[in-house]
């Protein structure tokens, strides 16, 4: 998949905006628990293929381990992102979905398969490569998505109490 520079800049603008804030996530966290939905509940803004990309990026950026066992790939961040997209204007929503498709298919060139189909190690290599990419626009788009998902991850009810063990003022409450 080839993106024009103009489109890429548009994606970065949409995603970059979210770096600053993810304030729109509030629309999700007020009244709806994104982490507590049935596994087979349909997404409202995401296609299932796009949700798989979100899970792959989250797993790559926030792998589970000794400090916090729950990895980003298991933290229902596809639900979090689905709710976020719903609260966005149409243009930003479309650009972010386009970014997901670019990531999914861009991995074919870099790693030989779609991002969501890659083994975890290769997913991580691809995502970390984007975060260190020579083009600021690519880095910006990838970073925006990661920061956004990070805010979801650190406020997940399984993760927030663990974060609070370090950030002891009740972070995420």
């Amino acid at each position, binding site marked *: 998949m080839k993106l024009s520079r103009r489109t890429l800049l548009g994606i970065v603008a949409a995603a970059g*905006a979210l770096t600053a804030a993810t304030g729109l996530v509030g629309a999700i966290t007020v009244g709806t628990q994104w982490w507590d939905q049935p596994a087979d509940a349909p997404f409202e803004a995401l296609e299932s293929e796009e949700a798989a990309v979100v899970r792959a990026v989250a797993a790559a950026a926030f792998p589970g381990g000794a*400090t916090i066992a729950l990895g980003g790939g298991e933290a229902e961040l596809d639900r979090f992102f689905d709710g976020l997209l719903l609260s966005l204007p149409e243009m930003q929503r479309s650009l972010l979905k386009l970014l997901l498709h670019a990531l999914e298919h861009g991995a074919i060139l870099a790693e030989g398969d779609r991002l969501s189909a890659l083994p975890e190690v290769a997913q991580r290599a691809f995502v970390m490569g984007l975060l260190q990419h020579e083009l*600021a626009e690519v880095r910006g788009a990838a970073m925006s998505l990661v920061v956004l998902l990070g805010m979801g991850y650190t*406020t997940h009810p399984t993760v927030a109490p663990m*974060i609070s063990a370090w950030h*002891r*003022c009740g*972070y995420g409450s």
Partner: protein
Amino acid sequence: MPDHAPQSPEEWRRAIAETLGPCALPGYPTPNPLGLLQPAPPARGFLDLPSDSEISVEVVIVGGGPGGGSAALALTQAGVQTLLLEEGPARSHFRKNYAHTARYHMQEAGTMVARGSAMMPIAAGRGLGGSSLVNSALSFRPPRRVLDQWAADLDDPSLGFDALQPLYDEVSELVGVGITRAEISGENNDLIVRGIQALGLEGGLAPRGTPGCIGCGVCYFGCPSGGKGSTNLTYLPRAHALGLDIQAEVKVEGLIVENGVVRGVEAVAIHPDTGARGARLRVRAKHVVLSAGAVGTPRLLWHSGAAAALGAHTGEHLQVHPGSTIVAICDHEVEMWKGATQGAYFHHPDLPGVLPHTFSAPPEACLVAAGFLGDRWQEGLALLPRMCGMLLMVSDKGEGRVRAFGDGRADLVYTFADEDVDRIKRGLVEVARVLQAGGARDLYVPIHGVQMSQSPEALAKQLTDRTIKDFTLYAAHPMGTCRMSRDIGSGVVDRSGRAHGLRNLWLADASVFPSSLGVNPQLSTMVMGTRVGRALAASG
């Protein structure tokens, strides 16, 4: 968490216990010792506007932040009938996660980004209290050279450094400005102070408008203990007691202009949770004061079509105090969330216009800034208690502009000056020296191509060939977009804040600053709001 300053010792003890828990520092001061902080005033909201309506007042103020709040107090003290309109929620409510803060207390839900030399998120607060709700209340006064230049440029001695000091004194007293107390500073600030002292630099614990601070370390979420001298607890309750009427949860979308005279504003109710649009409110007024901030005010002027009458400088000259950050790892526990959020600063003699001060942020922001993602995520989580941070900002030579997209959102462009980029790099090296002199070890900067450094010299070497596109940027001090000037050929408002191009229109926020301040703008915005309010009251 309370939306008001507790008023009795028992309320304070309860607030402290609920807020701090294990973060409590020994020996915190008696909060609100002078009774400076008052309960937030009542305000009407979305549900109080069931149907379209029209009202008339003497003065309507758009925006309830430091500029609008201080103007409101000046006007009501003079007996002027005043209505204040605010887009944000009628009752502020804080939680300790940034998603919530941004949703309710950041303009455009925190999604404003300037394009241009590089993508740069720009933050501005909203709600009754505006940016004072979500800042660290750092309360520096601008340097003499800045204010005296304003006086010279505008041929107005009353804008000079010496002439403005009584007004700075007055504002400082009202919001309770004081040097950060050692007993609530916390190690994130103390480490910096040790570094400053070891290197013999000018600086130390910083002045903040936080008379009831108990050192929660999360000012950016909103003050959980009600100890910050934010506008909702200082100016607005005093103005309300003098008759200020407050309607929140309404977004002003247009000015009523008739034959070159501003006659009022048009607004629509916005539901604070859903964003749904409700009834329309038309306010006719003898005078309109715009205090929506240096992004919000010109955005409104452009979106409403009023900009054309205000001259070519409307929305121009955006300055933001750009800068960068170092997150460092120490061998000992710092726990940056214990103590004053941003409570220490220094000046370097070779870097005028560069102001480094404490950095503190939510955990994921610290980890991303330091690059602890992927294989290093778990390591970063474990290092959180040993992280400290310092940021710097520069009094910018670069400029940008504010316009409005068709849907009303702010359209921002900012172009960096090479000189500013150079000063940011040199400033980072000096910040690195201070941090290491204070006890930090490994230095991480959010700049592409720069690896962890173990010495300032190594950092300086890595920074040499970095360009602004390599930086991860953030700015929170927009200003100067409707600057004061002698005439419409060089700015938007006159020395008193009155618009050159439209009668009965006044501006009272950071948009009127004639140039970049070089210090955090809250105190100066309050000074300017007070000045504009008094000038309007005196104008008859």
